[in-house]
């Protein structure tokens, strides 16, 4: 996984709350293979009209936000289904960091597992960032070491679980980490058979 230390890019304001994973990628696109790329499906039904034409009033379609890699949005981003495709859609579109006051739990961990940073800010700071972007600011820098987002004259702190920060900074994949505990896992499974003889499915 690509490590995330510091990133500078175009930030797009998305002043909506509760963007759920069904919005991030509607279910009908989830049959496609990842190899085809999920970027075109990101927020599909908000970005495009019934004819498949871009909605001009949708922020990601504004010409000055083309190529955006940072999304600034409102609370409860990524609630709902566990579809990791929601994170794939963001990443394949080119998003590296989503800034919001709160995130769906499963979405946030899926993001981290794919190198996408869910940066949690206070409601007030989120509104200040949105206002700055809507007022014409375009670029932002996200510094994961310092846990700071810089945008124009604003310096906004953000939060992230320490474990997730470490994972992102190092680009760690859990599986490699887990492999180093193989002996502990085997010992657990062996002693568990004694502790919980009823655990295993009683295959008919």
């Amino acid at each position: 996984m690509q490590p995330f230390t510091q990133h500078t890019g175009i930030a797009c304001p998305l002043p909506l709350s509760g963007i759920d994973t069904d919005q991030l990628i509607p279910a009908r696109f989830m049959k496609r293979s990842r190899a085809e790329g999920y970027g075109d499906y990101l927020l599909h039904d908000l970005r495009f009209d019934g004819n498949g034409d871009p909605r001009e009033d949708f922020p990601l379609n504004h010409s000055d936000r083309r190529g955006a890699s940072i999304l600034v949005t409102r609370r409860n981003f990524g609630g709902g289904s566990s579809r990791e495709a929601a994170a794939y859609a963001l990443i394949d579109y080119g998003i590296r960091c989503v800034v919001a006051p709160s995130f769906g739990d499963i979405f946030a961990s899926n993001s981290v597992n794919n190198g996408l940073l869910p940066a949690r800010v206070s409601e007030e700071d989120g509104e200040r960032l949105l206002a700055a972007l809507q007022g014409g600011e375009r670029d932002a820098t996200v510094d994961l070491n310092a846990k700071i987002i810089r945008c124009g004259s604003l310096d906004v702190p953000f939060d992230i679980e320490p474990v997730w920060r470490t994972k992102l900074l190092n680009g760690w994949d859990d599986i490699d980490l887990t492999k180093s505990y193989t002996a502990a896992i085997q010992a657990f499974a062996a002693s568990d058979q004694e502790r919980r003889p009823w655990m295993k499915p009683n295959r008919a």
Partner: protein
Amino acid sequence: MSASVGRPRTLFDKVWDAHVIVEREDGHNLLWIDRHFLHEGSFHAFDKLKAREAEVARPDLTFGIEDHYVPTRVRNIAQIDPAIRRMIEQLRANTTQHNLKSFDLNDPGQGIVHVVGPEQGLTLPGLTIVCGDSHTATHGAFGALAFGIGASEVAHVLMTQTLWQKKPKRMRISIEGALSAGIVAKDIALSMIAKIGADGAAGYAIEYAGSTIRNLSMEGRLTLCNLSIEAGGRSGMVAPDETTIAYLRGRPYAPKGDAFERGAADWLALASDADAVFDKEVSLDATQIAPIVTWGTSPDDALPITQDVPDPDRISDPGRAEHVRDALSYMGLQPGQKLTDIRIDRVFIGSCTNSRIEDIRAAAAILAGRKASVPGLVSPGSMLVKQQAEQEGLDRIFKEAGLEWVEPGCSMCVGMNGDLVPPGERCASTTNRNFRGRQGPGSRTHLMSPAMAAAAAVTGQLTDMRALLKERA
């Protein structure tokens, strides 16, 4: 073992502690996973497995289930959309290759994963259970720690039978008192979500407690735990009691004989210690709960059926007012309109939230001898529920009322199999998500209990089912 052993512990703590393999100082815990359920959406995870040329670590603890994409009207997959068929065939290829038991379309136990696990006795108290589906919290009704995971985590569990997790905080939702006639777990859940918000339990493991919960059937507890994620909670649990044990005895995959009795004793000991401390406490008065419906595009946009659609101009919080305005415009509703004046186009009775035998009975009790004035689909949660309902003659009630009685699957909960609500249409639905487009692009969803959906089918508009119950009395 975890450091918290010895102090008063909650139900959640006890199950968590029993599964910690490694506890790192940074808060990362490696948990042992007892059950892993897979469905057609698991292909991303199998692709990751293939990329690493890895095997499934514990095929005996891993089960496939065909539910998300399965057709509900024909069962021959040669006759369905090739893209959907490919999803089912991919799961079959993956479970066959790794020698996993799969409840496929031809299995007499097939159904929705969160219905099948409990009724097969695969779900047991004290287990850790994961599935690439956010409603995995459902299994917490048995006092299991069950939660939804993403594809990377599914791949990790497949390869190692473990998962890295940070410990969530604990929340207790206490519900006391007797429910009024016709009020069910769905109404409790929607009231709870409306009270704490769609992200109110984010970061928490929920325990449902109190006299109301003790008096709920397993079906009711399953509905309640199922909806934990709609309040943002990744898991929701109920302490095992005699209701739990009576339900499990004799289930196909449950332990037998002495092993069962040993299990039962262990399970009853899982209840939270009397002096255990929760990070957050919420309480609800069951006697005040009325039938609830949602009017908006988030599960916390919920109100008692006796009330009116909210008016954004009278909401002081600007963010909330904006959400309400957007939601009403998407839903095609007027501020201040009576909820009971909202006309509907169709009904759906099904999904892992409300498709168990009790749900089917409750809907049938309203529809018996009546006609539906709108079209609708009734999809029992599993082949076993379907069989039981047919033995009781409930299928005839739905068919005589003019509704379609179809095969089990996720169906119109998510529309992946092609069972969709057409754009602009309004559906009274027993499902769990009223998100924009959830039941199909442009679809409008109102969530409610099975009896409320049945009442809406009869009148063609949102209806207080108590009126239809009264006519019967």
